[in-house]
Protein backbone atom coordinates (compact mmCIF):
# COMPACT_ATOMS: atom_id res chain seq x y z
CA UNK A 1 0.00 0.00 0.00
CA UNK A 2 2.63 2.47 1.07
CA UNK A 3 4.67 1.64 -1.98
CA UNK A 4 1.73 2.27 -4.27
CA UNK A 5 1.12 5.58 -2.55
CA UNK A 6 4.73 6.66 -3.04
CA UNK A 7 4.46 5.67 -6.69
CA UNK A 8 1.34 7.85 -7.09
CA UNK A 9 3.05 10.78 -5.42
CA UNK A 10 6.06 10.35 -7.69
CA UNK A 11 3.83 10.19 -10.75
CA UNK A 12 1.97 13.38 -9.85
CA UNK A 13 5.20 15.18 -9.01
CA UNK A 14 6.58 14.30 -12.41
CA UNK A 15 3.37 15.34 -14.18
CA UNK A 16 3.35 18.71 -12.43
CA UNK A 17 7.05 19.25 -13.13
CA UNK A 18 6.68 18.53 -16.85
CA UNK A 19 3.52 20.62 -17.17
CA UNK A 20 5.29 23.47 -15.43
CA UNK A 21 8.29 23.29 -17.75
CA UNK A 22 6.18 23.27 -20.90
CA UNK A 23 3.54 25.77 -19.80
CA UNK A 24 5.70 28.20 -17.80
CA UNK A 25 6.53 30.48 -20.75
CA UNK A 26 2.82 30.84 -21.51
CA UNK A 27 2.04 31.56 -17.88
CA UNK A 28 4.77 34.17 -17.93
CA UNK A 29 3.31 35.66 -21.10
CA UNK A 30 -0.16 35.92 -19.53
CA UNK A 31 1.12 37.55 -16.32
CA UNK A 32 3.24 39.99 -18.30
CA UNK A 33 0.44 40.95 -20.66
CA UNK A 34 -1.64 42.50 -17.89
CA UNK A 35 1.12 44.37 -16.06
CA UNK A 36 1.66 48.11 -15.95
CA UNK A 37 5.06 49.49 -16.94
CA UNK A 38 5.79 50.63 -13.39
CA UNK A 39 5.09 47.15 -12.06
CA UNK A 40 7.03 45.32 -14.76
CA UNK A 41 10.19 47.39 -14.82
CA UNK A 42 10.96 47.60 -11.09
CA UNK A 43 13.61 45.05 -10.26
CA UNK A 44 12.61 44.94 -6.56
CA UNK A 45 9.08 43.77 -7.39
CA UNK A 46 8.26 40.10 -7.19
CA UNK A 47 7.78 39.38 -10.90
CA UNK A 48 5.19 36.66 -10.28
CA UNK A 49 2.62 38.90 -8.61
CA UNK A 50 0.66 41.94 -9.59
CA UNK A 51 2.25 44.58 -7.39
CA UNK A 52 -0.07 47.08 -9.00
CA UNK A 53 -3.58 46.36 -10.28
CA UNK A 54 -3.62 44.55 -13.63
CA UNK A 55 -4.37 46.64 -16.70
CA UNK A 56 -5.92 46.14 -20.12
CA UNK A 57 -3.99 49.05 -21.61
CA UNK A 58 -1.47 46.72 -23.25
CA UNK A 59 -4.18 44.84 -25.12
CA UNK A 60 -5.71 48.14 -26.10
CA UNK A 61 -2.33 49.28 -27.45
CA UNK A 62 -1.80 45.97 -29.27
CA UNK A 63 -5.14 46.00 -31.04
CA UNK A 64 -5.50 49.69 -31.83
CA UNK A 65 -1.99 51.12 -32.11
CA UNK A 66 -0.15 48.31 -33.88
CA UNK A 67 -0.72 46.29 -37.00
CA UNK A 68 -1.57 43.17 -34.98
CA UNK A 69 -5.07 42.76 -36.37
CA UNK A 70 -3.61 43.21 -39.84
CA UNK A 71 -1.09 40.41 -39.17
CA UNK A 72 -3.91 38.14 -38.05
CA UNK A 73 -5.96 39.02 -41.12
CA UNK A 74 -2.96 38.34 -43.38
CA UNK A 75 -2.27 34.98 -41.72
CA UNK A 76 -5.92 33.94 -42.02
CA UNK A 77 -5.99 34.93 -45.68
CA UNK A 78 -2.78 33.08 -46.56
CA UNK A 79 -3.83 30.07 -44.49
CA UNK A 80 -7.26 29.86 -46.11
CA UNK A 81 -6.04 30.15 -49.69
CA UNK A 82 -3.20 27.67 -49.09
CA UNK A 83 -5.65 25.20 -47.54
CA UNK A 84 -7.84 25.41 -50.65
CA UNK A 85 -4.91 24.97 -53.06
CA UNK A 86 -3.54 22.12 -50.97
CA UNK A 87 -6.85 20.25 -50.88
CA UNK A 88 -7.41 20.70 -54.62
CA UNK A 89 -4.02 19.18 -55.44
CA UNK A 90 -3.34 16.81 -52.56
CA UNK A 91 -6.68 15.01 -52.29
CA UNK A 92 -6.60 13.60 -55.86
CA UNK A 93 -2.85 12.99 -55.62
CA UNK A 94 -3.25 11.13 -52.33
CA UNK A 95 -6.00 8.94 -53.78
CA UNK A 96 -3.94 8.28 -56.88
CA UNK A 97 -1.00 7.09 -54.78
CA UNK A 98 -3.19 5.00 -52.51
CA UNK A 99 -5.24 3.22 -55.16
CA UNK A 100 -4.27 3.88 -58.74
CA UNK A 101 -0.49 3.95 -58.78
CA UNK A 102 -0.08 0.26 -58.18
CA UNK A 103 3.02 -1.07 -56.46
CA UNK A 104 5.12 2.06 -56.62
CA UNK A 105 2.36 4.13 -55.02
CA UNK A 106 3.63 3.46 -51.54
CA UNK A 107 7.24 4.27 -52.44
CA UNK A 108 6.05 7.45 -54.16
CA UNK A 109 4.12 8.57 -51.11
CA UNK A 110 7.21 8.09 -48.97
CA UNK A 111 9.02 10.16 -51.61
CA UNK A 112 6.39 12.85 -51.06
CA UNK A 113 7.18 12.76 -47.39
CA UNK A 114 10.90 13.18 -48.06
CA UNK A 115 10.11 16.25 -50.16
CA UNK A 116 8.29 17.65 -47.15
CA UNK A 117 11.55 17.25 -45.24
CA UNK A 118 13.47 19.49 -47.68
CA UNK A 119 13.92 22.46 -45.37
CA UNK A 120 12.91 26.02 -46.41
CA UNK A 121 16.45 27.17 -45.57
CA UNK A 122 17.71 25.21 -48.60
CA UNK A 123 15.24 26.82 -51.00
CA UNK A 124 14.61 30.34 -49.76
CA UNK A 125 17.31 32.04 -51.85
CA UNK A 126 16.30 30.63 -55.26
CA UNK A 127 12.60 30.93 -54.37
CA UNK A 128 13.22 34.56 -53.50
CA UNK A 129 14.58 35.10 -57.02
CA UNK A 130 11.56 33.29 -58.50
CA UNK A 131 9.19 35.40 -56.41
CA UNK A 132 10.93 38.57 -57.59
CA UNK A 133 10.78 37.39 -61.20
CA UNK A 134 7.01 36.86 -60.83
CA UNK A 135 6.68 40.36 -59.29
CA UNK A 136 5.17 38.83 -56.18
CA UNK A 137 7.69 40.13 -53.65
CA UNK A 138 6.11 42.12 -50.85
CA UNK A 139 2.77 40.56 -51.61
CA UNK A 140 0.94 37.91 -49.64
CA UNK A 141 0.59 36.02 -52.91
CA UNK A 142 4.30 35.16 -52.71
CA UNK A 143 3.41 33.06 -49.65
CA UNK A 144 0.27 31.67 -51.26
CA UNK A 145 2.44 30.38 -54.11
CA UNK A 146 5.32 29.01 -52.03
CA UNK A 147 3.60 27.49 -48.97
CA UNK A 148 2.00 24.66 -50.96
CA UNK A 149 5.56 23.37 -51.57
CA UNK A 150 5.51 22.47 -47.87
CA UNK A 151 1.85 21.57 -47.43
CA UNK A 152 1.16 19.54 -50.59
CA UNK A 153 3.82 16.85 -50.02
CA UNK A 154 2.85 16.56 -46.37
CA UNK A 155 -0.88 16.40 -47.05
CA UNK A 156 -0.60 14.07 -50.03
CA UNK A 157 1.34 11.61 -47.97
CA UNK A 158 -1.01 11.87 -44.99
CA UNK A 159 -4.05 11.42 -47.26
CA UNK A 160 -2.50 8.52 -49.16
CA UNK A 161 -2.19 6.69 -45.85
CA UNK A 162 -5.73 7.62 -44.94
CA UNK A 163 -7.32 6.55 -48.23
CA UNK A 164 -5.28 3.36 -48.11
CA UNK A 165 -6.91 2.42 -44.80
CA UNK A 166 -10.42 2.51 -46.29
CA UNK A 167 -11.55 -0.99 -47.37
CA UNK A 168 -11.33 -1.44 -51.14
CA UNK A 169 -14.56 -3.44 -51.14
CA UNK A 170 -16.61 -0.30 -50.66
CA UNK A 171 -15.46 1.32 -53.90
CA UNK A 172 -15.53 -1.95 -55.78
CA UNK A 173 -19.12 -2.54 -54.70
CA UNK A 174 -20.02 0.94 -55.94
CA UNK A 175 -18.27 0.25 -59.24
CA UNK A 176 -20.12 -3.01 -59.68
CA UNK A 177 -23.27 -0.91 -59.20
CA UNK A 178 -22.20 1.12 -62.23
CA UNK A 179 -20.24 4.01 -60.75
CA UNK A 180 -17.05 4.98 -62.54
CA UNK A 181 -13.85 4.89 -60.50
CA UNK A 182 -13.86 8.67 -60.20
CA UNK A 183 -17.46 8.94 -59.05
CA UNK A 184 -16.90 6.05 -56.63
CA UNK A 185 -14.05 8.12 -55.21
CA UNK A 186 -16.20 11.23 -54.94
CA UNK A 187 -19.39 9.59 -53.66
CA UNK A 188 -18.02 6.77 -51.52
CA UNK A 189 -14.45 7.47 -50.45
CA UNK A 190 -14.61 11.22 -49.84
CA UNK A 191 -17.59 11.10 -47.45
CA UNK A 192 -15.73 8.43 -45.44
CA UNK A 193 -12.61 10.59 -45.36
CA UNK A 194 -14.08 13.69 -43.75
CA UNK A 195 -12.10 13.26 -40.53
CA UNK A 196 -8.85 12.76 -42.44
CA UNK A 197 -9.51 15.80 -44.59
CA UNK A 198 -10.31 17.94 -41.54
CA UNK A 199 -7.01 16.82 -40.02
CA UNK A 200 -5.23 17.86 -43.22
CA UNK A 201 -6.94 21.26 -43.08
CA UNK A 202 -5.81 21.74 -39.48
CA UNK A 203 -2.21 20.77 -40.20
CA UNK A 204 -1.99 22.74 -43.42
CA UNK A 205 -3.29 25.79 -41.62
CA UNK A 206 -0.91 25.44 -38.68
CA UNK A 207 2.05 24.84 -41.01
CA UNK A 208 1.31 28.16 -42.72
CA UNK A 209 0.92 29.80 -39.34
CA UNK A 210 4.29 28.44 -38.14
CA UNK A 211 6.28 29.18 -41.27
CA UNK A 212 8.91 31.83 -40.70
CA UNK A 213 11.72 31.90 -43.27
CA UNK A 214 9.65 32.53 -46.41
CA UNK A 215 7.45 35.04 -44.62
CA UNK A 216 10.54 36.87 -43.39
CA UNK A 217 12.26 36.86 -46.77
CA UNK A 218 9.57 37.41 -49.38
CA UNK A 219 7.46 40.00 -47.58
CA UNK A 220 9.16 43.05 -46.10
CA UNK A 221 6.35 45.62 -46.05
CA UNK A 222 4.98 45.90 -42.51
CA UNK A 223 1.36 45.94 -43.65
CA UNK A 224 1.79 42.60 -45.44
CA UNK A 225 3.49 40.69 -42.59
CA UNK A 226 1.98 37.51 -41.23
CA UNK A 227 1.64 36.76 -37.55
CA UNK A 228 4.75 34.67 -36.99
CA UNK A 229 7.08 37.29 -38.49
CA UNK A 230 5.02 40.41 -37.79
CA UNK A 231 5.00 39.97 -34.03
CA UNK A 232 8.72 39.32 -33.42
CA UNK A 233 9.99 41.64 -36.16
CA UNK A 234 7.55 44.54 -36.45
CA UNK A 235 6.41 44.84 -32.86
CA UNK A 236 10.00 45.07 -31.65
CA UNK A 237 10.93 48.61 -32.57
CA UNK A 238 14.61 49.28 -32.27
CA UNK A 239 15.61 48.57 -28.71
CA UNK A 240 12.31 49.53 -27.14
CA UNK A 241 10.47 46.28 -26.48
CA UNK A 242 6.78 46.55 -25.74
CA UNK A 243 6.98 43.41 -23.68
CA UNK A 244 3.43 43.34 -22.40
CA UNK A 245 1.88 43.78 -25.85
CA UNK A 246 4.38 41.34 -27.35
CA UNK A 247 3.50 38.66 -24.83
CA UNK A 248 -0.21 39.27 -25.32
CA UNK A 249 0.26 39.01 -29.09
CA UNK A 250 2.01 35.65 -28.71
CA UNK A 251 -0.30 34.06 -26.21
CA UNK A 252 -3.52 35.11 -27.96
CA UNK A 253 -2.45 33.02 -30.95
CA UNK A 254 -0.76 30.23 -29.01
CA UNK A 255 -3.56 29.04 -26.74
CA UNK A 256 -6.37 28.48 -29.30
CA UNK A 257 -3.97 26.91 -31.80
CA UNK A 258 -2.60 24.65 -29.08
CA UNK A 259 -6.05 23.43 -28.07
CA UNK A 260 -7.21 22.73 -31.63
CA UNK A 261 -3.91 21.05 -32.41
CA UNK A 262 -4.08 18.71 -29.45
CA UNK A 263 -7.50 17.52 -30.64
CA UNK A 264 -6.00 16.29 -33.92
CA UNK A 265 -2.75 15.03 -32.53
CA UNK A 266 -3.42 11.32 -32.76
CA UNK A 267 -4.01 11.61 -36.51
CA UNK A 268 -0.68 13.37 -36.97
CA UNK A 269 1.15 10.80 -34.91
CA UNK A 270 -0.34 7.94 -36.88
CA UNK A 271 0.96 9.69 -39.97
CA UNK A 272 4.39 10.51 -38.62
CA UNK A 273 5.00 6.91 -37.63
CA UNK A 274 4.07 5.91 -41.19
CA UNK A 275 1.08 3.89 -40.05
CA UNK A 276 3.48 1.57 -38.19
CA UNK A 277 1.41 2.48 -35.18
CA UNK A 278 -2.28 3.07 -35.42
CA UNK A 279 -2.68 6.18 -33.28
Amino acid at each position, binding site marked *: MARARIRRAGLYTAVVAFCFFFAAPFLWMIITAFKTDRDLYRAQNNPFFFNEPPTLDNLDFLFFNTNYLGFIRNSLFVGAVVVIITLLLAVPAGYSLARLAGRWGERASIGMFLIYLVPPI*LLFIPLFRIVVALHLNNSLWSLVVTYPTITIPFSTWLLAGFFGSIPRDLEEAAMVDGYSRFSAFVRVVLPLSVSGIIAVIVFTFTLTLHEFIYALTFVTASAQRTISVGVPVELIRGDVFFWQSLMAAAVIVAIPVGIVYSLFLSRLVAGLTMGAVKG
Partner: protein
Amino acid sequence: MSVETVKPPRFSILSDNERVLGALMLAPAVIFILALVGLPLVISIAFSLSDVTVGDTSLDFVGLENFRRVIRTPQFQRAVVDTVVFTIVALLIILVLANILAVIFTQDFHGKWLARILVILPWATPIALGTLGWLWLLDSKFSPIDYVLVQIGLLGPDTLLGPGLHLNYLGREFLAMGSVILVHVWRLTPLSAVILLAGLTSIDQELIDQAQVDGASGLRTHLQIKLPLITPIMAIASLFGFILIFTDLVVVFVLTRGGPIYYTQVLSMWSYNKGLEGGALAEGAAIALFFAPVLLVAAVLILRTVRRIEVN
Protein backbone atom coordinates in the same frame (compact mmCIF):
# COMPACT_ATOMS: atom_id res chain seq x y z
CA MET B 1 -22.57 -16.39 -63.57
CA SER B 2 -23.01 -13.64 -66.09
CA VAL B 3 -20.65 -11.48 -64.08
CA GLU B 4 -17.94 -14.07 -64.61
CA THR B 5 -18.20 -13.85 -68.38
CA VAL B 6 -18.31 -10.06 -68.49
CA LYS B 7 -15.44 -9.51 -66.12
CA PRO B 8 -12.23 -10.11 -68.12
CA PRO B 9 -12.66 -7.53 -70.92
CA ARG B 10 -14.21 -4.96 -68.61
CA PHE B 11 -11.36 -5.31 -66.17
CA SER B 12 -8.61 -4.62 -68.70
CA ILE B 13 -10.36 -1.50 -70.00
CA LEU B 14 -10.86 -0.42 -66.44
CA SER B 15 -7.22 -0.85 -65.50
CA ASP B 16 -6.14 1.18 -68.54
CA ASN B 17 -8.57 3.92 -67.58
CA GLU B 18 -7.36 3.72 -64.04
CA ARG B 19 -3.78 4.26 -65.03
CA VAL B 20 -4.75 7.36 -67.01
CA LEU B 21 -7.00 8.58 -64.21
CA GLY B 22 -4.24 7.98 -61.67
CA ALA B 23 -1.76 9.98 -63.71
CA LEU B 24 -4.25 12.82 -64.20
CA MET B 25 -5.00 13.00 -60.51
CA LEU B 26 -1.35 12.97 -59.54
CA ALA B 27 -0.03 15.33 -62.23
CA PRO B 28 -1.01 18.74 -60.78
CA ALA B 29 0.74 18.03 -57.46
CA VAL B 30 3.84 16.64 -59.18
CA ILE B 31 4.10 19.58 -61.58
CA PHE B 32 3.73 22.02 -58.73
CA ILE B 33 6.48 20.31 -56.75
CA LEU B 34 8.82 20.09 -59.74
CA ALA B 35 8.33 23.80 -60.45
CA LEU B 36 8.73 25.08 -56.91
CA VAL B 37 10.96 22.49 -55.21
CA GLY B 38 12.89 20.86 -58.05
CA LEU B 39 13.64 24.01 -60.01
CA PRO B 40 14.75 26.01 -56.94
CA LEU B 41 17.10 23.19 -55.96
CA VAL B 42 18.71 23.36 -59.39
CA ILE B 43 18.90 27.16 -59.20
CA SER B 44 20.41 26.88 -55.75
CA ILE B 45 23.21 24.65 -57.05
CA ALA B 46 23.73 26.97 -60.05
CA PHE B 47 23.93 29.99 -57.71
CA SER B 48 26.46 28.29 -55.48
CA LEU B 49 28.77 27.73 -58.47
CA SER B 50 28.43 31.31 -59.72
CA ASP B 51 29.20 34.88 -58.65
CA VAL B 52 25.60 36.07 -58.49
CA THR B 53 24.69 38.88 -56.06
CA VAL B 54 21.57 40.96 -55.55
CA GLY B 55 23.27 43.81 -57.42
CA ASP B 56 24.67 41.74 -60.30
CA THR B 57 22.29 38.93 -61.19
CA SER B 58 24.25 37.54 -64.15
CA LEU B 59 25.55 34.03 -63.52
CA ASP B 60 29.29 33.67 -64.18
CA PHE B 61 30.67 30.23 -63.44
CA VAL B 62 33.28 30.30 -60.68
CA GLY B 63 33.45 26.60 -59.79
CA LEU B 64 33.85 25.81 -56.12
CA GLU B 65 35.21 29.26 -55.27
CA ASN B 66 32.19 30.14 -53.07
CA PHE B 67 32.55 26.97 -51.03
CA ARG B 68 36.28 27.63 -50.58
CA ARG B 69 35.71 31.23 -49.50
CA VAL B 70 32.87 30.31 -47.16
CA ILE B 71 34.81 27.53 -45.41
CA ARG B 72 37.64 29.92 -44.55
CA THR B 73 35.50 32.36 -42.54
CA PRO B 74 35.51 31.90 -38.74
CA GLN B 75 31.76 32.56 -38.65
CA PHE B 76 31.14 29.57 -40.90
CA GLN B 77 33.44 27.32 -38.88
CA ARG B 78 31.70 28.36 -35.70
CA ALA B 79 28.31 27.84 -37.38
CA VAL B 80 29.20 24.25 -38.28
CA VAL B 81 30.35 23.51 -34.72
CA ASP B 82 27.31 25.18 -33.17
CA THR B 83 24.83 23.55 -35.51
CA VAL B 84 26.26 20.11 -34.70
CA VAL B 85 26.57 20.75 -30.95
CA PHE B 86 23.05 22.21 -30.66
CA THR B 87 21.57 19.33 -32.62
CA ILE B 88 23.31 16.51 -30.77
CA VAL B 89 23.00 17.87 -27.25
CA ALA B 90 19.38 18.94 -27.68
CA LEU B 91 18.47 15.62 -29.28
CA LEU B 92 20.00 13.56 -26.45
CA ILE B 93 18.15 15.57 -23.81
CA ILE B 94 14.92 15.37 -25.83
CA LEU B 95 15.10 11.58 -26.13
CA VAL B 96 15.61 11.10 -22.39
CA LEU B 97 12.83 13.52 -21.43
CA ALA B 98 10.46 12.23 -24.12
CA ASN B 99 10.89 8.66 -22.88
CA ILE B 100 10.02 9.67 -19.33
CA LEU B 101 7.10 11.78 -20.52
CA ALA B 102 5.74 9.01 -22.74
CA VAL B 103 5.87 6.50 -19.88
CA ILE B 104 4.06 8.98 -17.63
CA PHE B 105 1.30 9.30 -20.19
CA THR B 106 0.79 5.53 -20.34
CA GLN B 107 -0.35 5.77 -16.69
CA ASP B 108 -3.78 6.90 -15.55
CA PHE B 109 -3.95 10.09 -13.53
CA HIS B 110 -6.37 12.91 -12.76
CA GLY B 111 -6.34 15.87 -15.12
CA LYS B 112 -4.70 13.95 -17.94
CA TRP B 113 -6.62 15.90 -20.59
CA LEU B 114 -5.32 19.18 -19.22
CA ALA B 115 -1.76 17.84 -18.97
CA ARG B 116 -2.02 16.74 -22.61
CA ILE B 117 -2.95 20.22 -23.78
CA LEU B 118 -0.30 21.93 -21.62
CA VAL B 119 2.42 19.57 -22.78
CA ILE B 120 1.60 19.93 -26.48
CA LEU B 121 1.40 23.74 -26.35
CA PRO B 122 5.11 24.38 -27.10
CA TRP B 123 4.93 22.30 -30.27
CA ALA B 124 1.59 23.70 -31.44
CA THR B 125 2.56 27.33 -30.94
CA PRO B 126 4.21 29.12 -33.87
CA ILE B 127 7.85 28.66 -32.97
CA ALA B 128 8.67 32.37 -33.37
CA LEU B 129 6.05 33.29 -30.78
CA GLY B 130 7.08 30.60 -28.30
CA THR B 131 10.71 31.66 -28.62
CA LEU B 132 9.63 35.24 -27.98
CA GLY B 133 8.32 34.11 -24.60
CA TRP B 134 11.76 32.68 -23.83
CA LEU B 135 13.44 35.88 -24.97
CA TRP B 136 11.53 37.67 -22.22
CA LEU B 137 12.05 34.85 -19.67
CA LEU B 138 15.81 35.08 -20.29
CA ASP B 139 15.92 38.88 -20.30
CA SER B 140 19.21 40.38 -19.11
CA LYS B 141 17.57 42.60 -16.48
CA PHE B 142 14.11 41.23 -15.73
CA SER B 143 14.48 37.46 -15.94
CA PRO B 144 12.24 35.85 -13.32
CA ILE B 145 14.74 32.96 -13.23
CA ASP B 146 17.34 35.39 -11.88
CA TYR B 147 14.81 36.60 -9.34
CA VAL B 148 14.20 33.06 -8.07
CA LEU B 149 17.94 32.31 -7.95
CA VAL B 150 18.54 35.45 -5.88
CA GLN B 151 15.69 34.61 -3.51
CA ILE B 152 16.95 31.10 -2.81
CA GLY B 153 20.45 32.38 -2.30
CA LEU B 154 22.21 31.01 -5.36
CA LEU B 155 22.79 34.32 -7.10
CA GLY B 156 24.04 37.64 -5.76
CA PRO B 157 26.99 38.82 -3.64
CA ASP B 158 28.81 35.97 -1.83
CA THR B 159 26.86 33.19 -3.52
CA LEU B 160 27.60 30.20 -5.71
CA LEU B 161 26.72 31.83 -9.02
CA GLY B 162 28.57 35.06 -8.47
CA PRO B 163 28.24 38.61 -7.29
CA GLY B 164 25.96 40.05 -10.00
CA LEU B 165 22.19 39.97 -9.68
CA HIS B 166 21.75 38.84 -13.29
CA LEU B 167 23.19 35.92 -15.20
CA ASN B 168 22.62 37.61 -18.58
CA TYR B 169 21.71 34.33 -20.27
CA LEU B 170 21.80 35.53 -23.84
CA GLY B 171 24.88 37.70 -23.48
CA ARG B 172 27.47 35.09 -22.46
CA GLU B 173 28.91 32.43 -24.68
CA PHE B 174 27.99 29.19 -22.94
CA LEU B 175 24.78 30.44 -21.36
CA ALA B 176 23.58 31.66 -24.75
CA MET B 177 24.39 28.30 -26.32
CA GLY B 178 22.58 26.56 -23.47
CA SER B 179 19.59 28.85 -23.96
CA VAL B 180 19.26 27.91 -27.62
CA ILE B 181 19.43 24.22 -26.68
CA LEU B 182 16.87 24.76 -23.91
CA VAL B 183 14.34 26.28 -26.33
CA HIS B 184 14.81 23.41 -28.79
CA VAL B 185 14.28 20.90 -25.97
CA TRP B 186 11.21 22.77 -24.78
CA ARG B 187 9.69 22.85 -28.24
CA LEU B 188 10.49 19.37 -29.54
CA THR B 189 10.19 17.11 -26.49
CA PRO B 190 6.37 17.13 -26.79
CA LEU B 191 6.51 15.92 -30.40
CA SER B 192 8.98 13.12 -29.65
CA ALA B 193 6.96 12.13 -26.58
CA VAL B 194 3.68 11.73 -28.48
CA ILE B 195 5.42 9.68 -31.17
CA LEU B 196 6.99 7.41 -28.53
CA LEU B 197 3.68 7.22 -26.69
CA ALA B 198 2.00 5.91 -29.83
CA GLY B 199 4.73 3.26 -30.00
CA LEU B 200 4.38 2.27 -26.35
CA THR B 201 0.59 1.93 -26.47
CA SER B 202 0.84 -0.32 -29.52
CA ILE B 203 2.92 -2.93 -27.68
CA ASP B 204 1.09 -6.17 -26.99
CA GLN B 205 0.02 -6.01 -23.34
CA GLU B 206 0.55 -9.78 -22.95
CA LEU B 207 4.28 -9.40 -23.43
CA ILE B 208 4.44 -6.89 -20.60
CA ASP B 209 2.18 -8.91 -18.30
CA GLN B 210 4.36 -11.95 -18.97
CA ALA B 211 7.50 -10.04 -18.00
CA GLN B 212 5.88 -8.80 -14.82
CA VAL B 213 4.71 -12.29 -13.89
CA ASP B 214 8.31 -13.38 -14.34
CA GLY B 215 9.23 -10.76 -11.77
CA ALA B 216 10.76 -7.99 -13.88
CA SER B 217 10.55 -4.52 -12.32
CA GLY B 218 8.86 -1.59 -14.06
CA LEU B 219 12.15 -0.01 -15.08
CA ARG B 220 13.52 -3.32 -16.34
CA THR B 221 10.41 -4.03 -18.39
CA HIS B 222 10.79 -0.61 -19.92
CA LEU B 223 14.48 -0.91 -20.76
CA GLN B 224 14.63 -4.56 -21.80
CA ILE B 225 11.25 -5.23 -23.38
CA LYS B 226 9.54 -2.02 -24.43
CA LEU B 227 12.54 -0.02 -25.63
CA PRO B 228 13.79 -2.66 -28.09
CA LEU B 229 10.26 -2.98 -29.47
CA ILE B 230 9.89 0.73 -30.09
CA THR B 231 13.41 1.27 -31.41
CA PRO B 232 12.19 1.92 -35.00
CA ILE B 233 9.63 4.44 -33.74
CA MET B 234 12.31 6.06 -31.62
CA ALA B 235 14.57 6.23 -34.67
CA ILE B 236 11.87 8.08 -36.58
CA ALA B 237 11.25 10.47 -33.67
CA SER B 238 15.00 11.15 -33.51
CA LEU B 239 15.31 11.77 -37.23
CA PHE B 240 12.43 14.26 -37.20
CA GLY B 241 13.96 16.02 -34.24
CA PHE B 242 17.35 15.97 -35.93
CA ILE B 243 16.10 17.61 -39.13
CA LEU B 244 14.01 20.19 -37.27
CA ILE B 245 16.87 21.30 -35.01
CA PHE B 246 19.59 21.01 -37.62
CA THR B 247 17.91 23.30 -40.15
CA ASP B 248 16.14 25.65 -37.75
CA LEU B 249 16.53 29.38 -38.20
CA VAL B 250 13.83 30.77 -35.95
CA VAL B 251 15.14 29.99 -32.46
CA VAL B 252 18.51 31.60 -33.09
CA PHE B 253 16.97 34.44 -35.12
CA VAL B 254 14.59 35.47 -32.36
CA LEU B 255 16.79 34.65 -29.37
CA THR B 256 20.31 35.79 -30.26
CA ARG B 257 20.66 36.55 -33.98
CA GLY B 258 23.82 34.46 -33.73
CA GLY B 259 25.31 36.52 -30.90
CA PRO B 260 26.96 37.32 -28.59
CA ILE B 261 29.64 38.05 -31.24
CA TYR B 262 28.97 34.95 -33.33
CA TYR B 263 28.96 32.37 -30.55
CA THR B 264 25.51 30.98 -31.34
CA GLN B 265 25.86 31.28 -35.10
CA VAL B 266 24.24 28.37 -36.92
CA LEU B 267 24.38 27.44 -40.60
CA SER B 268 20.84 28.58 -41.38
CA MET B 269 21.36 31.95 -39.69
CA TRP B 270 24.70 32.47 -41.45
CA SER B 271 23.16 31.56 -44.80
CA TYR B 272 20.40 34.10 -44.19
CA ASN B 273 22.85 36.79 -43.09
CA LYS B 274 25.08 36.27 -46.11
CA GLY B 275 22.49 35.54 -48.76
CA LEU B 276 19.80 38.06 -47.92
CA GLU B 277 20.97 40.68 -45.48
CA GLY B 278 24.38 40.79 -47.18
CA GLY B 279 23.03 40.27 -50.70
CA ALA B 280 25.67 37.63 -51.55
CA LEU B 281 23.22 35.16 -53.12
CA ALA B 282 25.95 32.82 -54.32
CA GLU B 283 27.62 32.44 -50.93
CA GLY B 284 24.26 32.19 -49.16
CA ALA B 285 23.24 29.36 -51.47
CA ALA B 286 26.60 27.65 -50.97
CA ILE B 287 26.22 27.75 -47.17
CA ALA B 288 22.69 26.33 -47.35
CA LEU B 289 23.90 23.51 -49.62
CA PHE B 290 26.13 22.23 -46.81
CA PHE B 291 22.89 20.89 -45.36
CA ALA B 292 22.17 18.75 -48.39
CA PRO B 293 24.48 15.73 -47.85
CA VAL B 294 23.54 15.43 -44.17
CA LEU B 295 19.83 15.65 -45.00
CA LEU B 296 20.27 13.02 -47.68
CA VAL B 297 21.75 10.63 -45.12
CA ALA B 298 18.85 11.37 -42.75
CA ALA B 299 16.36 10.67 -45.55
CA VAL B 300 18.00 7.33 -46.37
CA LEU B 301 17.95 6.38 -42.69
CA ILE B 302 14.25 7.21 -42.48
CA LEU B 303 13.54 5.07 -45.54
CA ARG B 304 15.48 2.14 -44.11
CA THR B 305 13.73 2.43 -40.77
CA VAL B 306 10.34 2.48 -42.46
CA ARG B 307 11.27 -0.61 -44.42
CA ARG B 308 12.26 -2.35 -41.21
CA ILE B 309 8.89 -1.47 -39.70
CA GLU B 310 7.11 -2.84 -42.76
CA VAL B 311 9.03 -6.11 -42.60
CA ASN B 312 8.10 -6.58 -38.96
